[in-house]
């Protein structure tokens, strides 16, 4: 049976999270010549419906990108014991579900480290999408990294909103960026889906640096995006599709160690990141992998040593 993928509300071309998932799926399709079914959600109510439709049509495995599927999948998984599901960013406890979560705090730590090293004002910004523990996890890792690079760094963190609309409000993203710039920030990290596009745009317009998220967003404003915190959703999707109906289920953590997260380097930001900085960051990365540095995960206890929300 063909695999299927369901994208979350932002749509598969959001240049960020969903696009990463899409890239993973197309990579699989190109490599194997297979085809996959796909759907972009347009409303919350469709989650369960889409899952059921794909399950009934025999798709296997069914991959879904986004924590918001958690509840729906919890409902549906039991009804289709012969279908395998893979969910990204959420843990669903069912025998036929693979739950893929990422150590975003680790990746964020790295880009936070780079931000603080690059900042001339010792002030770096973070703009999150919807204010949920997952995004706080990004922010917390980022702040830890920044403080580790330079203890005097001020981290300004803002969330765009408390609803799903916060993922898709570039205008507000832009305004928040301006506010952070006026508070002295000269590097801003956006973990905000579509909202982040507004952040990156405004940062580029106003002549400061930004950091992208999920996909490699360096190309969006060449020379203006310091780096992107890669969350290899594409790898997770690719892997799930490649594993096919025999996919191993269970809990699947993707971190620095297994290339689940990282930071992006390409020709667009080559000028911005000195070899020296790159070397330091790689060293830090190694230390995290080796356990020498532990990055606190906000979601483990809903608290953050480096940042208050």
């Amino acid at each position, binding site marked *: 049976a063909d695999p299927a993928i369901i994208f979350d509300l932002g749509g598969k071309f959001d240049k960020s999270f969903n696009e990463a998932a899409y890239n993973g799926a197309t990579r699989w399709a190109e490599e194997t010549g297979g085809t996959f079914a796909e*759907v*972009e959600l*347009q*409303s*919350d*109510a*469709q989650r*369960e*419906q*889409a899952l*059921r*439709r794909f399950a*009934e049509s025999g798709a296997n495995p069914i991959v879904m990108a986004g*924590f*918001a599927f*958690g*509840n729906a999948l919890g409902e*549906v998984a039991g*009804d289709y014991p012969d279908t395998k599901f893979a969910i990204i960013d*959420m843990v669903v406890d069912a025998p036929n579900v693979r739950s893929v979560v990422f150590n975003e705090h680790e990746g964020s730590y790295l880009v936070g480290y780079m931000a603080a090293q690059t900042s001339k004002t010792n002030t770096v910004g973070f703009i999150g999408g919807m*204010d*949920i*523990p*997952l995004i706080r996890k990004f922010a917390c890792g980022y702040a830890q990294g920044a403080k580790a690079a330079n203890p005097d760094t001020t981290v300004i963190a803002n969330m765009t909103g*408390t*609803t*799903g609309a916060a993922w898709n409000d570039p205008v507000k993203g832009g305004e928040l960026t301006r506010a952070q710039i006026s508070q002295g920030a000269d590097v801003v990290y956006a973990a905000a889906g579509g909202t982040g596009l507004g952040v990156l745009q405004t940062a580029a317009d106003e002549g400061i640096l930004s950091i992208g998220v999920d996909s490699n967003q360096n190309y969006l404003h060449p020379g203006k995006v310091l780096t992107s915190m890669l969350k290899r959703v594409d790898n997770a999707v690719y892997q799930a599709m490649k594993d096919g109906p025999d996919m191993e289920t269970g809990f699947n953590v993707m971190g620095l160690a297994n290339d689940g997260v990282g930071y992006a380097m390409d020709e667009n930001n080559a000028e911005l990141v000195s070899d020296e900085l790159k070397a330091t960051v790689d060293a830090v990365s190694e230390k995290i992998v080796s356990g020498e540095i532990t990055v606190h995960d906000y*979601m483990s206890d*809903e608290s953050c040593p480096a940042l208050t929300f």
Partner: protein
Amino acid sequence: MNELPKWADLFLVPLVGLVMAFALSMLMVLATGNDPMEALSLMITGALGSTYGWGYTLYYATNFIFTGLAVAVAFHASLFNIGGEGQAALGGLGVALICLFFPWPHWTIALVAACGSAALFGALWALIPAYLQAKRGSHIVITTIMFNFIAASLLNYILVNQLRPKGAMDPATAKFPEPTHLPSLGDILGAVGIPFSKGTPANVSLIVALIACVLVYYLIWRTRLGYQIRAFGKSQPAAVYAGINPVRITIICMMISGGLAGLMATNNVMGEAERLILGSVEGAGFIGIAVALMGRSHPVGILFAALLFGALYQGGAELGLWTSIPRELVIVIQALVILFTGALDNMIRSIVARLFFSRKAAEA
């Protein structure tokens, strides 16, 4: 120009409006490079071609019956309640509080309590605009629009800061406990031996909605209160002459309307999601306007209009799943239906009248 006979006004005019709305929408489908016939047939089979489709169609229809009745009851008093969205959202809060914080032995009792609470919360959310309209002449359309936004913010606050379980991501309450889960239509029909898809969200609230239709029929057309509501809606000076208190009627009528909108929560919150999610109303409050307009504010008409829109929603969802035609097509169709059966009603009527009388003249 002569007047149309009543049946033509009641059926033909909305039907022509509907056909025009569909025709225009299908042109749009064509313009976006898709095959309208294929789209249409996919929508129809998706919505009505299987018990699975029916399950969703009926689920959506249940929502729209409630909000359609809500708009209609207010229409009868010449009040335009555009606040169904907010009232249904608050109804959801009423349901959530009932389901989360009381130990219910059985779903039947929980449903009764939830109905009461949902209606109460919806009614209270309509109370302030009603009061302001009745006592201070504040235009109810504007206040109810404002109250939709205020409701969204309020619910946002309550869900995010109060009811969201620790560590959860989406702004939603915890899952309601098992005893409050309503039997689905599949369960009910299965119990009497009729095979029906089990995975669909249609549930016992459909019966609540049907009961609401009957009650609203009796309310509007058979009771003194309904008589007074209709009289007030036709002429306010006459109502004062008859001793019908405008303040009282406005408030009571809007509270009934808000209560009906609130009742919708038994379907989407208690019956489907089994938890309260932010934004769970999903525009049903506004669709109620289209449903009431199409159904000519009569419960029977509303029932059919709600079914139609339910099928439209389910059919549209299928389109979104299986073709590159986005589900937003449904919103366009819905917009055109409201436009043609509501705002451009007179245009359709004159077209129909022209056709009608030219036919008659030809026959004679």
